[in-house]
Every structure is written in structure tokens, then in C-alpha cells.
């Protein structure tokens, strides 16, 4: 078994039995002495080697904030840009260990990007340390930090009241802060709150009880971290949840399902269900490099084989057969927005949950939360670092649990399909019943049947370009040509739609997204009716055009970029709109004070500086003919 290892019983005992893992995060700003506190913990636990301490002494003399003393905060600031600015700007991870535990600390800054960073750090934490400056007491940021860690599912907070040395170690000051905090935290409902009076600079009540606070009888910070019970046991007793991560097929005789158990335990013989297909079967083996395992539990990464040849692939969820997860495609969720551009109703993103990635469309945004006072306020959009509740509609059903039951089967990230950035994170609350009750009515007379009567193939010609580019002119000419060829068409024109269907919408980014969403949905119904549909809208945002593309089967969406330089369009200015916009009378005008995102891969690009409208229309018709779009169905 161990070719080159010599057995040492003391080390064996230490490794195999005792040590557990506690992950925690720290909330507070540099001013509260957070970096100093963590630096102090690292120092006290003895993980700082001598050569680094020597470097610390040198750094403290050079850039330290406290002349003549060690500046423990300098142990933490990693990137040179931050060291120059004197603030930490990102999540960083630190490690230390005691005889009982290994600790992973997610250190998150209190300033810039606090929501994004704190949510990231808290997402994997079992416990949070919230730092307060004893001179300042409970502040807005304290409430904000508490709400965020509560939102991420942390149920145990440690309130560290720091800088006690600067308030003469006053019991009264500490007692008032503790009472204030408990009164506030009651509305959140943590399971456990521990308050500790500390001076990080002097080391009071960090490792050892301080003689300066004889009135404090509770645990020291390190004592508490060593002893605190971590809530793994609840998840161990929950029903099995294992997202299938990878199907292991080294040869025809072996088919294993690899994944990490996120709830429950499993052993050979257990009845399991594969979701969302809902097929049931039995666990045959738990295969491992060290031989088959008799059982496995939450936290382990394993490989299962199943008794029956059921269809299982990445993204499926293996669960206890009689305690399955819920299945739905519409949800209410809390979303934390992490992107410069806002979250808008109608936008479509990739949603990754567990090992599954699906397409999600943002439905109604119900409210956003003022993280400073926990008030819910109505909001049409969510901006960077804002948190709100909204509906999400997925392109297919998924198996899930509410986030408060399980972080892994209820937590998700949102990914922008163009930039591939992670733009948001969220927590599923519950399925919207609508999902189960409203089915798409399968009609006997279908699209093919309707199109067949007309002897045509339905499609959507999506013209996009600046105002005055010539979209409507070209679309009109194309429509006339198709009509004369006995094709049944319909042209949805921007101005006309705004007179009726969309007369309630303005020109803000949010309204523009909704405008395009409605048009895309109407166009989809018309294509379904068997028509060749044209739309002529500026449709400036790539995301909405992509959304329309995804509504239709592949090949039926034809994006036509009417490419006219801004200077040319402005010169033409057929409706006098550019002049108005330049005079500031028209806000959010595309090309002037609102962006136009150029199509990356349009099916057809028309350069109107080279082609007349008539020639352009001929190009479009020729393009359709070449694609076989004007032939009758086969």
C-alpha cells in the first residue's frame, strides 16, 4: 500500500481522526482593522515563517501605518496595485491550522465591489466574522454585511468588537454595541450570534483571555473557532443529492457516474432516481481507486455504477428515489447583480446550477433590496452590486431544491453569452406554479401544415441598423417583391408597433429591451402561422437580437445588418431625429447617447453606401433564394 512511507502512529492519528475543516469569511473595512485581525490570527497560530516575519518588520518600517510596531495587515495585501492604494480590492484566501482544525479564511474587502466580493467569500463559508470598530458601534455597513451573509445562508456569526483599547476596554461600550446588534439581527434570524471584545493590534481575547477585560467571561476568538459546531450533520441526514458531473466510460463494460455528493449518504443497494427524467434504479457499486466503498457521504467526490441501463448524462441529478428534488422551469429567485450593465427584464443569460447549464430569461423584477435598511423597493432593473427578487424562465425543466435547504442544488450563476462573464449569482426560492399548469398547447394544425397550404417555408428577416440606415425602405421593397412572388408575408415596422402594441414603452434601455422582446414574441407567433415575417427595428443591443434568434428553430432567424455609418445616417436624417437628439431634445438616441452594438455574424450585411435600396432588396431576395427559403416545403 505505501511503498515509500514509514508508518508513524502519532502522525497517523493526527491525520486520520482529529482534524476537521472550517471555512469562514471576514466582513469589515480596512478602517475596522480587519486585515490586522487576520494578520494577527495568522501570527498567533504560528504559520508565519521567520523569513516572512523579517520581511514584515522591514515592510512595517517602510510603509506601515503604525510607527515602531509590526503592521500585521501587511501580511495580507498581495497585489502591488493594492499595496500602493492601501486597500484590498478582491477576495483573497488565507490558511492556518490549529491542533484541532484547518481554517480557510475568505477575506473580503468592505469598500469597493463589496457586494460582489462578500457574496463570493460567503458562498463557501460555514461562519462569518463581522467586525465593528468599538468607537463607532453598529453602522450601516454592519447591517449590510450581516444581511449579505444571512442571504448566502450563513447561520452563525461572530461579532468582533475591535479596537477595545481605544475605548479603555469599557464594558458599557461593549454591552451597548452587543445589545444594538442583537436587536437588529433579530429580524434576520441567525441561529447563533457570539460577541467578543478584541484588540487586534494588542492581541486581546484573540488567543488568550485579556487581563484588560476581566468582565468578559466568554470564549476567545481562536477558542471559539476551534470549538464551534459546524452544520454538516444536517446535510448528512438529508436525502441524497448528487449532480452528475462526468460519465466515465473507459470501455464498453463500464459506465460510471462521477460527481460530488452535496447532500445525504449513499451505499450499494440504495434505490435512486435520476432527475429530471425521473427513471428509478438501484446503486450497484461505489467505485474508487482504493477499491469499492461501502458507503459515501456529503462532501465526497465519487463514482457510482447503477443496476439498470438508464439514460444518465452530465447535468442530471441522482437523488434518493422516494425523496426527489422538485422539477420546474420557472422560478422566483434572489439575484445579486455583478456586472456594469444592468439586469433587464426580457434578457437571456446562461444559468449554471450544479453541473447543468441552461438558458434563462429574466421575467418580472419584483423589487430590489436596500441592503442598508433591508427595505424592499420596486425596481425596473438591477444595477451593479444590487440585489433583487425576480422571476426566471428556463428553456427546459431542471431539478432543484430551495437554496435555504441546499446551497448546491439551489445556488446558480448567470453568464453573459457574448462576453462569457459571470454577471450575476442567485438563489432559487420556489417554483412558480404557472410552470406546471400552463402548457404550450399542442395544436393539431401545426406550422408545417399552415406553411404547406401556402407552399412556402416560414422565416423571420430581422433588419437591424441605425435610425435612418434604410431598414424600413429596404424591408418594404423586399416585402413587395416577395408578395409579387405569391409569398405570404408580414412586415412589422418599428414606428407602427410603437403606435399600438408597445405604446406604453419609452426609450430607456429597459423599455427598449421589452419592446424587442414583445416584437420577437409576436414575430415568433407569425412565423408559427406560416408567414415570412420581416421586422425593421434599430434593435441596438446584441443580447435582444440573440434572444429573438433563440426563440426560433435554427435557420429560421435571418439577421440582416443594414450597415450605414453614423455620419451618413445623420446626414440623411429623414425624420429630423438626429437634429433633435443633437439639440438634446431626444434622450437615449442610438448612436448619439445610447450605443449601437454591431452584429458580429449577421446572415447578411448590406452596405448602403455601395448599394441603392432597390439593389439591396434584390440582394436580400437573391440571398433567400440561394438558401432555398423561397421554395415550397419538401
Amino acid at each position, binding site marked *: 500500500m505505501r511503498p515509500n512511507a514509514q508508518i508513524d502512529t502519532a502522525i497517523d492519528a493526527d491525520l486520520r481522526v482529529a*482534524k476537521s475543516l472550517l471555512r469562514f469569511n471576514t466582513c469589515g473595512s480596512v478602517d475596522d482593522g480587519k486585515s490586522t485581525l487576520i494578520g494577527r490570527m495568522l501570527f498567533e497560530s504560528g504559520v508565519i515563517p521567520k523569513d516572512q516575519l523579517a520581511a514584515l518588520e522591514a515592510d512595517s518600517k517602510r510603509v506601515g501605518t503604525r510607527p515602531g510596531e509590526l503592521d500585521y495587515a501587511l501580511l495580507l495585501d*498581495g497585489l502591488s496595485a493594492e499595496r500602493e492604494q492601501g486597500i484590498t480590492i478582491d477576495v483573497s484566501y488565507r490558511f492556518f491550522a490549529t491542533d484541532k482544525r484547518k481554517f480557510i479564511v475568505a477575506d473580503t474587502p468592505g469598500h469597493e465591489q463589496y457586494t460582489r466580493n462578500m457574496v463570493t467569500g460567503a458562498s463557501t463559508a460555514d461562519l462569518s466574522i463581522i467586525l465593528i470598530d468599538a468607537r463607532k458601534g453598529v453602522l450601516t455597513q454592519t447591517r449590510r454585511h450581516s444581511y449579505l451573509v444571512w442571504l448566502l445562508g450563513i447561520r452563525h456569526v461572530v461579532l468582533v468588537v475591535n479596537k477595545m483599547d481605544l475605548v479603555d476596554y469599557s464594558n458599557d461600550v461593549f454591552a451597548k454595541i452587543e445589545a444594538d446588534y442583537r436587536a437588529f439581527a433579530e429580524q434576520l434570524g441567525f441561529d447563533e450570534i457570539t460577541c467578543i471584545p478584541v484588540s487586534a493590534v494588542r492581541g486581546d481575547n484573540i488567543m488568550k483571555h485579556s487581563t484588560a477585560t476581566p468582565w468578559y467571561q466568554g470564549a476567545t476568538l481562536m477558542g471559539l473557532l476551534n470549538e464551534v459546531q459546524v452544520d454538516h450533520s444536517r446535510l448528512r441526514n438529508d436525502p441524497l443529492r448528487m449532480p452528475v458531473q462526468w460519465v466515465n466510460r473507459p470501455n464498453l463494460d463500464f459506465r460510471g457516474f462521477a460527481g460530488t455528493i452535496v447532500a445525504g449518504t449513499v451505499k450499494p443497494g440504495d434505490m435512486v432516481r435520476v432527475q429530471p427524467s425521473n427513471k428509478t434504479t438501484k446503486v450497484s457499486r461505489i467505485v474508487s481507486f482504493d477499491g469499492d466503498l461501502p458507503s459515501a457521504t456529503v462532501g465526497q467526490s465519487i463514482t457510482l455504477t447503477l443496476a439498470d441501463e438508464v439514460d444518465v448524462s452530465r447535468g442530471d441529478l441522482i437523488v434518493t428515489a422516494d425523496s426527489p428534488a422538485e422539477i420546474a422551469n420557472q422560478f422566483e429567485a434572489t439575484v445579486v447583480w455583478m456586472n456594469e450593465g444592468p439586469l433587464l427584464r426580457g434578457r437571456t443569460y446562461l444559468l449554471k446550477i450544479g453541473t447543468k447549464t441552461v438558458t434563462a430569461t429574466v421575467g418580472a423584477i419584483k423589487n430590489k433590496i436596500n441592503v442598508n435598511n433591508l427595505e424592499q423597493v420596486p425596481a425596473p432593473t438591477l444595477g451593479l452590486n444590487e440585489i433583487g427578487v425576480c422571476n426566471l424562465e428556463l428553456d427546459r425543466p431542471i431539478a432543484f431544491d430551495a437554496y435555504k435547504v441546499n446551497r448546491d442544488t439551489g445556488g446558480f450563476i448567470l453568464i453573459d453569452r457574448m462576453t462569457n462573464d459571470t454577471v450575476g449569482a442567485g438563489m432559487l426560492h420556489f417554483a412558480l406554479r404557472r410552470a406546471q399548469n400552463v402548457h404550450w398547447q399542442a395544436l393539431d394544425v401545426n406550422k408545417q401544415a399552415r406553411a404547406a397550404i401556402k407552399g412556402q417555408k416560414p422565416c423571420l428577416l430581422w433588419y437591424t441598423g441605425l435610425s435612418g440606415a434604410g431598414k424600413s425602405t429596404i424591408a418594404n421593397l423586399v416585402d413587395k417583391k416577395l408578395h409579387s412572388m405569391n409569398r405570404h408575408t408580414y412586415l412589422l415596422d418599428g414606428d407602427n408597433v410603437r403606435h399600438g402594441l408597445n405604446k406604453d414603452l419609452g426609450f430607456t434601455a429597459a423599455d427598449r429591451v421589452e419592446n424587442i422582446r414583445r416584437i420577437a414574441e409576436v414575430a415568433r407567433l407569425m412565423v408559427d402561422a406560416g408567414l415570412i415575417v420581416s421586422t425593421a427595428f434599430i434593435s441596438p443591443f446584441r443580447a435582444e437580437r440573440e434572444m429573438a434568434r433563440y426563440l426560433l428553430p435554427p435557420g429560421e432567424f435571418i439577421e440582416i445588418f443594414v450597415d450605414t455609418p453614423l455620419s451618413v445616417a445623420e446626414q440623411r436624417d429623414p425624420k429630423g431625429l438626429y437634429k433633435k437628439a443633437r439639440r438634446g431634445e431626444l434622450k437615449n438616441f442610438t448612436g448619439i447617447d445610447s450605443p449601437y452594438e454591431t452584429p458580429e455574424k449577421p446572415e447578411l450585411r448590406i452596405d448602403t453606401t455601395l448599394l441603392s435600396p432597390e439593389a439591396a432588396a434584390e440582394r436580400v431576395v437573391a440571398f433567400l433564394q440561394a438558401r432555398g427559403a423561397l421554395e415550397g416545403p419538401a
Partner: protein
Amino acid sequence: MSLTHLELLEAEAIQIMREVVAETEKPVMLYSIGKDSGAMLHLAKKAFYPAPPPFPLLHVDTTFKFRDMYTMRDRMAAESGMELLVHKNPDAIARNINPFTHGSQVHTDTWKTEGLKQALDKYGFDAAFGGARRDEEKSRAKERVFSFRSAQHRWDPKNQRPELWRLYNTRKQKGESIRVFPLSNWTEMDVWQYIYLEGIPIVPLYYAAERPIVERDGALIMVDDDRLPLKPGEKPQQRMVRFRTLGCYPLTGAVESTATTLPAIIREMQASEVSERQGRVIDYDSPSSMEQKKQEGYF
């Protein structure tokens, strides 16, 4: 019975490796022959068992590794049944780049940084596993598990994706690639304990033995072959030493030690008062040198 910290770290590393295999097109494992590479390779065997790890090993060779390391590399590749790719920067060969005449910085830049970029481009790998840990060095504490590189292999520390829960966004633009660090949350001690518990083979240089040593600027340099130019009057002396990290032999300092077994190494670590990278000459080139190297494409 709750899982120990090593069991949880193992499960996390395995989950990361499987995610890469499931979501990228052409992954590779960078194998530098050290203890972290050894632990990572062992984890890969566990992650994909009974299949062999579904990616090759890549060694970006500088031609100045210890001789014991080359022996170990070939043995491990043979035992794992994985394909071993060895890349030596042809430009460095042509210019005969070495640490003695060109200095440690040019040597490392040319063989390792440039060599790595060449190898990734040559084979078209879109994801590369590395054994780096966040505890190694301050600038690494903020490194993501999935770290994106532009088509020019540059790292932008100000524009990293948030990593929540166990969810990794692996999507990338054409030409971009990902460096993946499954051991991000491991410490040096964790690695040693894991090597001990799992019986993972390591290069004998990690164990203390009598070795021919010259002392230069406080660093104990082993005379591993006759390429090391001796200064006038300099004479290698047999000293009882071992190595905490392994790199190019002229750039890697030994420590005096009597730890000839794994338990002795662990006990020595527990009492240790210096950090692991102290033996590395490259970290001392300039302030924040590691961060700068990373932005330029060093692993």
C-alpha cells in the same frame, strides 16, 4: 463520522479536475516533477478511475533540472499510462540560455515562461492544470481556481471572474485559455500529509542525504553535474541536506536537514521557521516579482 480536512481537500480537487474534463476541449496537466505535481497526478488518477486520466502530461523542460527529477518523470509517466510531452524552447537551445551566463531571470523567462506559451500554442491546449497553491506567495492568495489567460497568455488580476460555491464558469473566447489550480486551497503541510497518507512517490532529493554542496550568497547549491562553474577556490563539500522545493538545480537552495523519512519531514515542517519559497532564487529578483511574472505569462 465527519470527513477530515484532507478528505475534503481531495474531494474538492477531484471535482475541479472533472469539471475541466467535462467542459473544456483539450486539457493538459503541467507536470513539473515536484511534490505538488506528484500529489496532483495522484488526484487525477483517483478522479478518473478506472479510466486513466483523459489528458497528457506536459513537462516544460529547462534542461537544468536535477538528474533525479528526469528519472522520476520518466518513471511516473510510464506507471500512469499517460502520454508525456516534453517541450524545450528551441530558441533557448539555439542561444544556449543558461543561468550562469544569462542570470536567473533570463533563464527562467526564456525556458519556462516562453517555453510554456510555445507548448500550449503548439498543441492547442485550452486548459492546463497547475499545482500552484494560494499559500505559496502573497500574490497567489487572490488567484482564482480557474484563471483565464488572453490569447497572448496574459493575466489580468483586476478582471477576474467571481467563483461562488462549487460553480466554475469555464466559458472562454476563441484563443483564450484557462490555467486551473486544483490545489489552490492546500497548504505545503497539507501536501506533505497527503503524500504520507497516500504513499505517493516523490523525488529522493526531498529526503535528507549527504550531497555535494557549494554555498553562494547564503544559498546551498548542489553540484548536480559538471555544468556548474566553480569559482576559484570553491570546492563542493558533502553536507547533509534536503530540498523543500525543486526547480533548476543551480537556482534551488537546499536546507540542512536530517529528515530521511516522511514522518521526519512532517515533524521538521511543524517546527519550521522559514517559508518554502525561500530556497528559490527567482522570487528575489525584484519586489512583487512573482506577480509581474504571472502577468507576463509565467504559470
